[in-house]
């Protein structure tokens, strides 16, 4: 899976070492095992204890009923009733639709804009460093603060945006514009992330294929589509996967901007889960909703990994 440029340098070095390798391989094996155990164990101990146990508890909760007066524990075992309830809840189904739509729209915009920015930043011109620094800022900002900045900008009477366009639109007060606003904020905040990954990718691309294409007479557009993009594929896929996962569970923006409204227009899954667990205090249902989110994320992740592996095998 190493980028093609490097592959070339290796063979010569490898052949020399092979013989020696066989000799100490057996002795090395047990040393490896010891090191591995010590190195890997703490990670899994921490994950299992602090994360795994609550996670399993959450799974257990999702199969229990709603215990109104119990503070935290669920009620009796009810099998799949919670999941059924979710599937019959129009708000949840609506939330699924909104989340998928929002994720697709955000990620698409972030990928396209991010690629454009990366291509521009890759050009060798003075002061690129400064521009790159400036463009990365939204990514660094605490999401809650970032959303707040936009909330102030979009304020109907005091905000700069309405001043600029001369209208008094209540951006966060109407379903369509609220969804649009949330989308804008997420694109603003996360495009730099994509741009950075793709820029790193562009930087690491070998120059030979592009030069070869230029010599063969390809114009800029052709060499972009047929040489650059395919080489950039691993980076594109990684950026895509990361953004899909994070936009799918986006919370801070929506919490700070709309709280899920108006009229449930921005009720993404994580907001739904949050309201279920922390406002309704129906932890069992919240756990079930979380697990549905987790399953969807896992399937998506598997799909991506399979795609990456399959392509590499070819």
């Amino acid at each position, binding site marked *: 899976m190493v980028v093609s440029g490097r592959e070339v340098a290796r063979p010569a070095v490898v052949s020399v070492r092979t013989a020696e390798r066989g000799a100490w391989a057996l002795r090395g094996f047990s040393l490896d095992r010891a090191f591995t155990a010590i190195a890997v164990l703490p990670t899994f101990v921490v994950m299992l204890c602090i994360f795994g146990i609550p996670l399993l508890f959450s799974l257990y909760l999702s199969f229990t009923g709603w215990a109104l*007066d119990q*503070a935290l524990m669920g009620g009796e075992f009810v099998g799949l009733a919670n999941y059924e309830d979710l599937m019959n809840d*129009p*708000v949840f189904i609506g939330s699924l639709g909104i989340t998928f739509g929002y994720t697709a729209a955000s990620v698409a915009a972030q990928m396209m804009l991010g690629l454009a920015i990366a291509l521009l930043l890759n050009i060798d011109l003075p002061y690129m460093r400064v521009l790159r620094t400036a463009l990365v800022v939204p990514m660094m900002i605490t999401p809650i603060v970032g959303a707040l900045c936009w909330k102030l900008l979009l304020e109907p009477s005091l905000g700069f945006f309405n001043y600029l366009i001369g209208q008094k639109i209540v951006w*966060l*007060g109407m379903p369509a514009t609220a969804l649009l606003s949330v989308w804008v904020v997420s694109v603003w905040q996360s495009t730099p992330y994509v741009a950075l990954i793709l820029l790193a990718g562009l930087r690491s691309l070998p120059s030979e294929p592009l030069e070869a294409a230029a010599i063969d007479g390809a114009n800029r557009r052709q060499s972009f589509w047929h040489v650059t993009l395919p080489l950039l594929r691993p980076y594109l896929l990684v950026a895509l996967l990361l953004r899909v996962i994070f936009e799918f569970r986006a919370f801070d923006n929506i919490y700070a901007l*709309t709280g*899920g*409204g*108006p009229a449930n227009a921005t009720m993404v899954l994580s907001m739904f889960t949050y309201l279920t667990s922390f406002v309704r205090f129906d932890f069992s249902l919240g756990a079930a909703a979380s697990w549905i989110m987790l399953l969807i994320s896992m399937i998506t992740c598997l799909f991506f990994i399979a795609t990456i592996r399959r392509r590499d095998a070819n």
Partner: protein
Amino acid sequence: MSTLNRRRLLMAAAAGGVMMPILAQNKPDKLVYLGDNQGGWKRTLTEEVGPAFEKETGIKVEFTLLPPDAWLARLKAEMGAGSSGVDITQWSVGMGGWVSPHMLDHNEVLARITARDPGFDWNDFLAGSKLAASYDGKLSGIPYRITTGILVFQKALLAKAGFAVAPGTFAQFHKAALAVNAPPDRYAFGLMGKQGPGLYPSLASWLYSAGGRLLDFKTGEIFINDDKAVTALQFMADLVVKDKLTPPEVTTWEFDDITAGGQRDRYVMAQTFAPYMTLMNDPVLSKTGGNWFADTVPGYTDKSQSRTWVDGHFLAVSKYAKNADWSIEFIRMACSKEWQLRSMERGNAPPRGSVLNDPAMAEKLGWPPTAARAIETGVPTPAHPAWSTLELALRTGVSETLQGQKTAKQALDAVAADWQRTLRRAGIGRA
């Protein structure tokens, strides 16, 4: 503190009679108070009562004030774990159902307080507040703040349009609103229209004045989509959608925003939390300082039908608290006549009749006597644990109506269907 009030405080304290010394339970070095961070009404507690308590007893009161969601989560976790980490619990009406089992029987707490301070006068507390502080027959806290909905209005503007008194019925309200509506600078009516916790208080006054009800928690019978409720919601929605009597940004307004809107002269009338009027009349903060007057909310066809919601915050000691005697002492101080009078000046809405009807306060703030009248007949926010779920569905329905997406009937029918599912899940009423 102005000199007038400091003197009154001292006089009242002296008049309170001799207080019994506190039982010498082991003195902790601090007491932990867990509450929410919304609204400045707690300022008296944090800035004055706390230090005064520390001065008197040597115990520091540590105020942990969290955003509402975090506060609820924390309280749930602490109570669920039987933790002794919270000495003084602040809880609000909607939490009554699940908080109550974890609290001491506050009739006993009351007995201890009265034994120590005969001047405490439990009878001074309004009936509505005592009702709200109890759940399932058990008194679970001492009321500190009782809020209710009143009609606030800019008297001069209404008079200019020919309305000498505040509207007393829905129809009069509609007429008055049409008369004073002056878009785009100033609208007739302001309300909390954001899909959030402000929607229920916005609807509740209209709902109850029209004779509507929510549901019966014992039998599971749902009333939210009957004719009266539909009428109420449709009336409110028409103000927003049909007649455009509200500023367009009300769909983003919650508690602070409606106050800010009043201060910025965005509307002439509103149904809102009684103590907010103090902020709207504050000449330092408000463009409209001094213009606001109070009255009870309009009744459906007659003023006598005027009904509104009652909510509030209570101070309580949990069963698990270690320093119960000292916590009780703090609560005694905070809820005493003198301190409640003082707290009203700084934004609180106390549950004591004597305080609300205090002539000097009535003169100065305007709303207290109105609030006292409203509380007497007020409907407490449901305390049943299932209410938070039911409320969420109601918020959706109201929001859809305010957006003009559905009629009140359609929206409330959907709410009722959701409530059926929730009640079944919760095992309430006929399954």
